[in-house]
């Protein structure tokens, strides 16, 4: 046996391919098992990437309308849905094709197929033609991801009821679209379809959109969504759906419903995702699942089988691509014998709606739940020159700060480009930066990033563009 470690990565999403690439870079002998021609997983094929391509067009459409207020008038857009779909697909193809190139350059053995554990050192691989073979491994990284949850009682065997994958297929632009679930996937896809011309209704069981995010930020987002969507029904449940004459009739149950039964051309179900833990032969190993079906892992992402790791959505919340990639790197470093562990201080979350909403680290909501003493500073974008030039005053930057050390514990941003701005917050939190550090770092003018600096200045009562004497 040579010193080269033999690693098999099961699943080619952003967790799996990041792990496989790093393993190869560290000189390991790597096999990547994934049914697709090229790596990418849900994120590239059916998630982050195609949805962002569509959201980019949605933004363009929205801005072309907003510009009439500035004296620039466009004709209503003519939408060629087939061409749009082709373009979206070309984005996906280009990106996944690029990954395929990187697989070859790194001399990773890519097996197109699916893998099942026979025991803790052997996999049975079924390739896409149905041919079975056995493969021995020293180490395995399980990165099989997740898939949308459906509600059996509401399942209808019709393409009119879609999950996120179906919605991204962009069959048509329905006149009336119902989005079930007010989480980020529903709101993003709702934003796309609304821009393309659908009348979008969002129904959410709980009292607010985006559970987990701070309410003050969601409020600003919701104001924007109220204008774009037909209606947002909170504290409302869908109790029945049936197909009627090319439409879906939906019965709601909830408070203050004007119309408890409505018809929609399509329904998009985005009520959550569940880990892909089935048909992997986990029962032939000592790998354990938790009560929600996630694989139990330690800080190094090691399962109960010491040579098998699990990363990404299958290893637990939050189910985010960037968390999966980071975990993939940790697992590979652990295999390489380093004492790497997964202990981030902040995993940024971004909702690519219009406006965008992003947060990292401790939220104000969490601080309240934990009864932790924090100071919160909010900088309204109405005081930002840059926001004004964009006519995007619907924004806010906020910092959650430890009162004693002035350390930045959390950051939230709602507004145009929030997803890009949050990165600074992540760095500040990870580096244990304090408000003085942010205040004393010169930020470029005129940009939205200045709002981060000015929020930090608020702690000292010296924010240039907000007059708010120091509270004591």
């Amino acid at each position, binding site marked *: *046996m040579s010193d080269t470690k033999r690693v098999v990565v099961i699943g080619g999403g952003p967790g799996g391919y990041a792990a496989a690439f790093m393993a190869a870079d560290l000189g390991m002998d790597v096999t990547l098992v994934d049914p697709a021609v090229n790596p990418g997983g849900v994120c590239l094929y059916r998630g982050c990437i195609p949805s962002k391509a569509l959201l980019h067009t949605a933004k363009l459409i929205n801005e072309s309308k907003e510009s009439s207020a500035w004296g620039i008038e466009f004709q209503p857009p003519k939408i060629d849905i087939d061409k749009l779909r082709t373009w979206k697909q070309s984005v996906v193809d280009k990106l996944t094709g690029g990954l395929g190139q990187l697989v070859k350059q790194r001399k990773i053995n890519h097996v197109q197929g699916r893998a099942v554990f*026979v*025991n*803790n*050192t*052997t996999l049975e691989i079924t390739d896409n033609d149905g041919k079975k073979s*056995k493969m*021995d491994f*020293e*180490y395995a990284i399980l990165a099989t991801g997740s898939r949308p949850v459906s509600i059996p009682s509401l399942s209808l065997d019709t393409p009119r009821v879609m999950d996120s994958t179906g919605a991204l297929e962009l069959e048509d632009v329905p006149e009336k679209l119902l989005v079930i679930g007010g989480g980020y996937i529903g709101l993003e896809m709702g934003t796309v379809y609304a821009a393309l011309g659908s009348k979008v209704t969002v129904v959410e069981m709980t009292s607010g959109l985006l559970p987990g995010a701070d309410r003050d930020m969601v409020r600003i987002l919701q104001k924007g969504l109220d204008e774009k969507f037909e209606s947002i029904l909170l504290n409302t449940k869908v109790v029945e759906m049936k197909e009627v004459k090319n439409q879906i009739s939906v019965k709601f149950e909830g408070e203050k419903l004007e119309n408890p039964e409505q018809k929609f051309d399509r329904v998009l179900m985005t009520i959550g995702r569940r880990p892909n833990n089935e048909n992997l032969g986990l*029962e*032939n*190993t*000592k790998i354990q699942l938790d009560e929600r079906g996630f694989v139990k892992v*330690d*800080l*190094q992402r*090691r399962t*109960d*089988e*010491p*040579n098998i790791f699990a990363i990404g959505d299958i290893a637990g919340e939050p189910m985010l691509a960037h968390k999966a990639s980071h975990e993939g790197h940790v697992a590979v470093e*652990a295999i390489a*014998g*380093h*004492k*790497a*562990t997964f*202990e981030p*201080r902040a995993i940024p979350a971004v909702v690519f709606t219009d406006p965008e909403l992003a947060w990292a680290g401790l939220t104000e909501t969490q601080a309240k739940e*934990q009864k*932790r003493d924090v100071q919160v500073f909010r900088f309204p974008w109405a005081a930002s020159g840059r926001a004004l030039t964009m006519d995007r005053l619907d924004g806010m930057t906020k910092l959650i700060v*430890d009162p*004693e*050390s*002035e*350390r930045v*514990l959390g950051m939230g941003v709602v507004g145009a480009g929030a997803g890009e701005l949050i990165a600074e917050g992540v760095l500040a939190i*990870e*580096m*244990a930066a*304090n408000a*003085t550090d942010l205040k004393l770092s010169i930020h470029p003018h005129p940009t939205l990033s200045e709002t981060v600096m000015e929020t930090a200045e608020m702690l000292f009562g010296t924010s240039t563009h907000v007059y708010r004497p120091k509270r004591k």
Partner: protein
Amino acid sequence: MSLEIKIPDLGDGIASGTVANFLVSVGDAVEVEQPVLELETDKAVVEVPSEIAGTVESILAKAGDEVKVGQVIIKLSGDAAPVEKEEKPDPPKKEKAPEPEKPAEKKIEAKPAGGPASDVEIKVPDLGEGITSGTIANVLVAVGDEIENEQPIVELETDKAVVEVPADASGKVTSVNVKAGDEVKIGQALLVVSSTGAPAPAAAPAKAKAAPASESKAETKAAPAPAPAPVEAKSAESLTPEFSPSASGVPAPAAPSVRRFAREIGVNINEVKGSGQGGRISVEDVKAHSKALHQKYREGGVAAPSGTIAAPPLPDFSKWGEVDRQAMSKVRQKTAEHLSSAWATIPHVTQFDKADITELEALRKQFGKKAEAAGGKLTMTAILLKICASALKVFPQFNASVDMANKQVVYKKYINLGVAVDTDRGLLVPVIRDVDKKNIVDLSVELTEIAVKARDGKLSLDEMQGGNFTISNLGGIGGTAFTPIVNAPEVAILGVSRGSYEPVYKDGEFVPRLMLPLSLSYDHRLIDGADGARFIRWLAEAIEQPFKIVLEG
């Protein structure tokens, strides 16, 4: 069933030895406790007994090979089961991962993965700053030690600094794979501990184990050889501890790179006190914390010599004639190291004197038969043992050690004396215990026995440790005086040369007296010149008038 005989724990930080001789050969039947080989360690030749019975199937080393503790040395076949652990109180249980090179003959071991104790390798962590290797400056633990997580285990010297490497697991040290001076690389195993904290749940699904066996393909595939190896090895690495969170609940204010560094060297970042704004923790803070931890664990110990001077490179001797290079024996290496260190650390002073042994010599001859009857030999050394023991009682600072690290003097309430013995393999110093409590005949018997043992290479390490003062008698060979080197951490040594008749001016005339030259070297840090002179004078007077022993000693 294939059984293995491994090099057992030899105690006292001994990690390896040289095979002197195999006492069995292939085909021999071996019984439990039967010695199977002789192993030469730093100071002793030890017989290694078998813990199991069986027939010798193969011998995996040859005489002269350097072998490590835990290394498989002989394979036995046979139905005999290993002896139960109760039989021997402390057979080192070596469930070390099998050597990946030769897993071929190894069957899949049936032992439950992650049982009550599992062996964990502690490796050289990433030291950051592009450092890839270092030299072991000091090994701070020994086989048999119980170590705790985060306890420093070695001092590692890199290009930049000496770093303490803390353990990242706790348990009993079962083997130490490195010694001071070894060059080690990042990731190299330093030692193995039998971990008591192995978390692997013994949920043991019998199914999983049965699977590969019943799998017909497994058999055709060159034995399931490599399969068990990684699993075993990896359970070791899985012990990255989940550090307890900080008391405040606020995550430790340290950058990711600093947190990673702390984890690599086994420091709980939540326990580190930051020196920066708002308690922010720097790499320096982590190092300081590690250093403090190290201090805490260090007990006693003499401050290391402040920089050893590297020997200049040797010339090419063959320019001037034929040379023959031979490896230094272990005893020679150890002697060289030990004496260099003693010479470099201790400010030596040697005081000379002579004792009139005319009367004593007469007594020695008179009572020689008595000792012989008891099985001993009444030598001058045996008598000097008793006299020195009394002297040490009178002068307790000679029965002491210097602890510079803690600025203390360690006074010993027992009197154990070392006796330098010249052997074929070099200088050995067996120790005779509680000399003050034994009579001279007893001492002569014990001295005879121990000298024979030393010459036969049968001394155990234990018999060479714990001395307070050493006697080196070269009188049998000759010479008038010499300057012995103090056997650190002792503080004095008595050198004895050959006695000879000298004219001594006594009562107005010269009379021939048998005079014994004495050379007392002592550690001037602890012992002043006047005390040195008093001590050797007391010795000389006691030799001349042994009544002094009873009177004062």
